[in-house]
Every structure is written in structure tokens, then in C-alpha cells.
């Protein structure tokens, strides 16, 4: 399905790339979040999770908005009532942010496609009878991707989170969804 961007230009359908390949320019990725105590945007939502740190390479989990609806992202991340917001980030804006990579090989953040595999509570891959990793077939999982080059010292990561929050466009999830039962 063709869609139009903010400028009204028609764009071809978005097709997931190979794991590790970059998302196209001017796409939007989403991450669910709980507001901060004063109602402001929550930078902690951009903290790398244990699962993010186990992925190779380390990537902050996000979803391409054209392949994953807000509701699907909310369900894929645990259907928690506190997660009442969705943060949208433009891939071009993300790629303008300085990375935590001190080696300067990757001076800016990047956004890659990342196949979403099923993992257990210890972030170990679930394997099928052939010993292969099992893809997550949940609705919307196809849009999974990751923000790279965020791993660094605590202060470096904090600086990145602070920059990410500046480019966020936030929207509230509907109350009917938040009060619904997990599916």
C-alpha cells in the first residue's frame, strides 16, 4: 500500500530489509513509554534493556510505524497500562545524533532492521526442533528494528537519551486500549 509522507509525497510500501540493513530515510519508528512523574516525556524509556544488550549488535528496540501499529507495539511490549504513550522518532533525525562510540567509526546513531526472535525470561533464544531461532510471528513484529551505537558509558548514554527525547513526537494511546485485557 502506498502511503504519503508529511509533504504529501506518495511513497512505495515499506518492506523489511535484512537484519542489520538500514531503514530508509524519512521513516518513523515508535517506542511505547510511560510518562514521567510530572507528565513530561520520559527519557528512561530510551534506556537499553537487558534484551537490547543481548542483541548482536546492541540495539534499542523500536518498530517501524508503517509496519507496526501503535496498538501492536503496545501489545508487543507487554500491554502495560502505565505505557500510555507512543514516542515517534524520525530516522533522519535519529541519524543526526552523536553516538556513544568513542572510536569515531560510528559517530552518529543509526537505525537498522532487526528480526524479532522469541526469547525466554533470560533473553535466550527459543529454538525449534531444528535448533533454529524462532521468529516472533505476533502481529506487527515484522516492523521490528533497532537504534545502534547507543552503548557506552552511563554519561554518554544519558546524553543520547537527552538528545532522543528532543526529537520525539508523542501521542497518547486510547484509554479503551489501556484498560483492555492482554491478548
Amino acid at each position, binding site marked *: 500500500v502506498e502511503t504519503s509522507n508529511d509533504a504529501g509525497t506518495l511513497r512505495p510500501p515499506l518492506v523489511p530489509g535484512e537484519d542489520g540493513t538500514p531503514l530508509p530515510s524519512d521513516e518513523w519508528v515508535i517506542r511505547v513509554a510511560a510518562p*514521567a*512523574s*510530572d507528565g513530561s516525556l520520559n527519557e*528512561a524509556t530510551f*534506556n537499553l*534493556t537487558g534484551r537490547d544488550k543481548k542483541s548482536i549488535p546492541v540495539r534499542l528496540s523500536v518498530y517501524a510505524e508503517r509496519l507496526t501499529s501503535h496498538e501492536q507495539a503496545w501489545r508487543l*511490549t507487554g500491554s502495560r497500562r502505565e505505557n500510555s504513550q507512543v514516542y515517534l522518532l524520525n530516522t533522519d533525525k535519529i541519524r543526526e545524533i552523536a553516538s556513544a562510540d568513542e572510536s569515531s567509526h560510528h559517530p552518529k546513531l543509526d537505525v537498522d532492521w532487526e528480526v524479532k526472535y522469541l526469547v525466554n525470561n533470560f533473553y535466550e533464544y527459543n529454538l525449534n526442533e531444528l535448533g533454529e531461532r524462532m521468529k516472533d510471528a505476533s502481529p506487527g513484529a515484522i516492523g521490528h528494528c533497532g537504534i545502534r551505537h547507543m552503548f557506552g558509558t*552511563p*554519561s554518554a548514554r544519558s546524553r543520547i537519551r537527552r538528545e532522543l527525547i528532543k526529537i520525539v513526537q508523542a501521542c497518547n494511546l486510547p484509554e479503551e486500549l489501556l484498560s483492555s485485557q492482554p491478548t
Partner: protein
Amino acid sequence: MSQLFFEPGIPLDSPNAASPTEPSQGNQPTTFTELRKFTNPFVSSLLLAGALHSGNSTSWSSPSESAMSWSDPVGQTGNREACLDLPGTADTFALRDERLSQLSRYLHDVSGKDGLITRETADRGWSLWLALVNAMGSGIDIEVPVAMAGQDGELFLVWDNGVHRFEADLLPDSPTDLIYLGPQPAADWEFKYKDGEPIPQDAIEKLKLFQRTA
């Protein structure tokens, strides 16, 4: 009329409260006597506001909720004056109470079974906030931080005035990252803080950048 207790069965102003002990940094007082020993009167006001949970992890109460039970123990002991011996007007106290109420309510709302963070992490966050306030010493009153719960059980307490930033990142089963971000990365500072340790002097100096203005 309701009473406020810090230990089950022992009223704050009870003569049977535990014997006086000097509170150490990072340790919460559990009795009113111990409470009086805190160097920063704001800590006392926090505690007396009922913002500190009572020791029972299921009985968090926000300052606004416990305000109804404020007057009795404070009025009887005459400690209210000491608690209010701080710079600021009635309006600034009201604003601070509102922010404290926000913080306390937030910790309650996002913690517990199926919450974003555990009660233990919420407890750690509140205790650290009190320890930081107390470490500032008498007469130095810092802003109430903004609390942020992450997606992996972490809790951040953040002070940010647009130029300077101080952050306490509480991570489950790990030391807390104390982080300062300056106007330039060269000024950045970070420290692995273990619960109960003295607050590092560097952190105290950084937090002075976030003093409340009357």
C-alpha cells in the same frame, strides 16, 4: 483521629520510641527520635509529611493523602516550627508539596505487581532522594526530582535546569549510577553508588546547582 506511625505500634511522639541514635547517611530513620537528628530540616518535613512509606511495602501514602494525619504528631511535639524553618514562602511550600505529592504518587503507581518497577526499586528511589536531601546539609534545599520509570525495571531521578543535569539511575540488582552532565561533555561526571554509602562530595557539589529558589 488518625496517627502516623513509623514503626508498627509505635507513635511518632511516643516516649517508648527507640533510643536516640545518630542517623547515618543513606539510612532511613525509623523513629521520631531518630528523625529529629537529621541535619536538614527538609528531611524531617518530608518524613513528617508522611511521604515516606511506613515500612510496610503495601502501605505507601502520598503527602496529600497523609496530610490529614499530619497535624497531630507534629502539633503535639512542637516540631512543626523546626520543619518549616526553611527559606521560602507559603506558595513555595505549596509548590514543593505538590511536586513531592507527584513523586510519591508516581512511585506508588508504577511499582508493585505487574508494575514497571518493583516496590523495592521504588523504596530505593525514595530512600536515595532522602539521603541526597540530607547530605546537602542544613539550609540547602534542592528541587524535587522528576522520576522516570523505564521499560526494564529501572528508575531514574532527574534534575535538569536546561544547562546542568544530575541523574540517579537506579537499576535492579545493580549499584545506582549517579551522573552529572555539564554544558560540555568534558565536564561530565559519573559514580557507581551503592545503597547506604555516604553520598560522594562531588555529587553534593553538583546537586547544589539545583537549589530551590524562594
